[in-house]
């Protein structure tokens, strides 16, 4: 449901002239295609862990950097980039 909500928001924010990038959790990533979300980074993380595990600042920063790269590099609508590493539990 959340990913559909953000699909509506992404479309409206882009319409207002502001470029967006959306961090999509893998289980809901099909919403990116369905809703033509402009730019998506898909993370192979469990629901509720969009950026990584709690207190894993390193992984959270990697995800944020990857999302900004998508923002910077995407030239076509509906761009979907997968974040490579699998989820890693807190350590």
């Amino acid at each position, binding site marked *: 449901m959340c990913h559909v909500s953000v699909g509506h928001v992404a479309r409206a924010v882009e319409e207002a002239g502001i470029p967006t990038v959306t961090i999509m959790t893998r289980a809901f990533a099909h919403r990116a295609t369905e*809703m033509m979300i402009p730019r998506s980074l898909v993370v192979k993380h469990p629901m509720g862990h969009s950026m990584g595990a709690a207190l894993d600042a390193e992984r959270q920063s990697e995800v944020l950097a990857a999302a900004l790269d998508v923002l910077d590099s995407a030239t076509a609508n509906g761009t979907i980039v997968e974040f490579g590493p699998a989820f890693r539990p807190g350590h």
Partner: protein
Amino acid sequence: MRNGYKDRVDSKQSTVDGQRAKRPYIGPPIMPAMGSPESFESFRLSFSYGSRSDLNFKFFKSISDKDAARFLQDLLHLLGDAYDTGDVLPLIDAAYAAQVAGYAPSATAPPAKFVYEDGPFTPVTAPIAEATLGMFTTSGHFLEGDDPEPFGEPALTQSEAEARVGEFLSSPPTLSEIPSDTPTDRLRVRHAGYDIRSAIADPNVTFPIDRLREFEADGRIGELAPILFSFPGATAHGHLRKELPGWIERIKDQGIDVMLLVPV
């Protein structure tokens, strides 16, 4: 680090859900099965806002008895391995794979309601390192002392939110404004759709405010918007779309060049 997580959840829980301050489980109370023997189907369904509500496993509702049984059997088998290996990663991987399969579109699932062939796309024209960046999440965070008070309730607990998920899914959503200089320990979270234990221990898992501040300090983004936005995304999409024009004005008021969106 493990203990750090436990301490954080236990110490912060009281502010979200007072009556369960010492317990990691914060869903609705688990009720013993009453009367006649419980069917496996009833057991499976009880994880989705039922007597065993567990938002990490609410997808049990949309998988078959056979698949749920197989998953639980596999999980226990992997646990048996973990006794000797100490490696819980295979358990986490199995749960992740089941979650992805559980939410995958299928022939029996209802078709997607919102499908678009095309949509708006605004090109990025300036370097991100010079841009003012805004953030919008559906994580359900809000500032301490600025509770959006769903349904007029002054201090709805996480348990109560889960129990009232149907009302969230049929009511107009409220967008919370969070100043980007907010100390992380002043953030609160409540959401009827996902397990917030991780977000209690560390808001950055779904509302990466500290990471954004670090990126700003390091010059990897130009500036962080004065106000960041969050609301619990489990909501009525008809109501949401009515609210959007007003929300967009509030977003534009931040003078941002680009926006990070984090659904949960």
